[in-house]
């Protein structure tokens, strides 16, 4: 099992969700987050006072898939989330030890 964590542009969320649905992924968790990589922040001005904002709003998707499906999922996210500009985000992939369905204690891939 792999856990895939993708940090993407907020306005790309719908496209990424559609792309994942198309390849049959049916579970995910989405969070609004703030952060930055190489993308520079921006300046906001309130009544003449400037604020440097370096933590930029992003969306984080978390999903867990069977090991052999991870490349297809990664490809779908990359394709749908890419604009080609700085700030498109990152994907992190982890090996996952265990998954448990709380309702009936199913374990492993059966719980996904």
């Amino acid at each position, binding site marked *: 099992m792999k856990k895939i964590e993708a940090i993407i542009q907020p306005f790309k969320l719908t496209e990424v969700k559609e792309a994942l649905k198309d390849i049959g992924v049916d579970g995910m968790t989405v969070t609004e987050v703030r952060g930055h990589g190489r993308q520079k922040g921006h300046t*906001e*001005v*309130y*009544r*003449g*006072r400037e*604020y*440097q904002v370096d933590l930029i709003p992003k969306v984080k998707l978390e999903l867990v898939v069977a090991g052999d499906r991870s490349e297809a999922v990664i490809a779908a996210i990359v394709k749908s989330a890419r604009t080609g500009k700085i700030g498109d985000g990152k994907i992190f992939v982890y090996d996952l030890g265990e998954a448990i369905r709380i309702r009936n204690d199913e374990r492993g891939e059966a719980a996904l």
Partner: protein
Amino acid sequence: MKLARLSAAACAAASLLNAQSADAEIAKLKTAVAAAQSAGDNAWMLTSAALVLMMTGPGLALFYCGLVRKKNVLGTMMQSFIMMAVITLVWVAAGYSMVFGSGNPFVGGFEFAFLNGVGTAPNTDYAPTIPHLTFMVYQMMFAVISPALITGAFAERVKFNALLVYSVLWMFLVYFPVAHMIWGKGGFLNAYLGGSIPVFDFAGGIVVHVTTGISALVCALVIGPRKGYPSEPMMPHSLVLSFIGACLLWVGWFGFNAGSALAASGLAASAFVATHLGGAAGAVGWLVAEKLKIGRASALGGISGAVAGLATVTQGSGFVSPIIGAVYGLAGGLICFYVVTVIKHKFKYDDSLDAFGVHGIGGIIGATLTGVFATNTVNDALKLANGQPAPLGMVDGNTAQIGNQLAGAAIGVVIAVVGSYVALKVAGMVCGGLRLDPREETQGMDLAIHGEEGYNLEA
């Protein structure tokens, strides 16, 4: 012959009877007309009173709470809301009487304390066509919003009990005397009812905006900046809330200014239009200045400019041609923008939500412009000895009025400075300091003072 005499006598008797019934008829009509006018005026004045209350809550509460950080949202709203409760009680107990009772030139007496003698019969000194109670409750709403305006200067850092002690003392030391001097019978600055220096303040440019704005500056200086100001970012947490609040303020301002005609009259319509133009031109002025200086026209700039324009036009709203309202607004928008975005940062005081920069400066501009533009073609209530309307401002040929207006504003400034300083010192002594301790300030007013949160994750 006999018959002719008899008929003449009969005619005379009949005409006498007719005349009597006509007099009765006229008296009846007069009563009916007065009742109709009173009904119309009373309806508008009760509506205006409600509009002005809406300016404090939710108007000002929302405007201010959106400008602070999340952790202080409820504490900030509460600083406005509590005035609706506490100042209301202070007003009926003593405030109304100390402003509108006839005492000496500087403060009113106690004849109306606890609403003694304030009933449905009009108080003919001030508003002959509406119930005395209506006049009292309308003026109450001005008293309520005034200390709430000041809270913008010391947002996010003051103890709740210190706020209450300061605000109540401030009413007695600053608001009641200044309001009496300008609006009360026999007041030192009352242009109509026996004052020494005639000052024209239609809806509280000096009484409300100068006193609160100057007091705000004193508070910002005495209390000191927020912990971490200006190095830490302190962005407004929700301009959406501020936007709603500012627009409610704008609407409520029609009650504030047009209501100050104290009747549903042509003068009310004139003040209404002047007020609206003030808000509109204020927004345009601030936005243009912002675009030129900073590069963007912002939502916060637009609403700040509208409030600045409205504060500026308040004083003259019922004395100047409606179109001049735009001049007030533009002046207020441009000058307040400069004070808030340049002067404040140069002098490094933390008037957190710009109560001084908007209300104090707007009020002083309004006082000056009223000396220039007040005219008896709009407001002819002030008469000369021969019954002709008195010349009001410079446009009527009364250049000296500019000096009178500035003298009135200066007296308001001095009383605000001294009164606020004393009130702060006493509040500090009574409450063991004015400020939250640093740990509480970091935690935020909502949890530290009120034990609750505005935005609850677990709910």
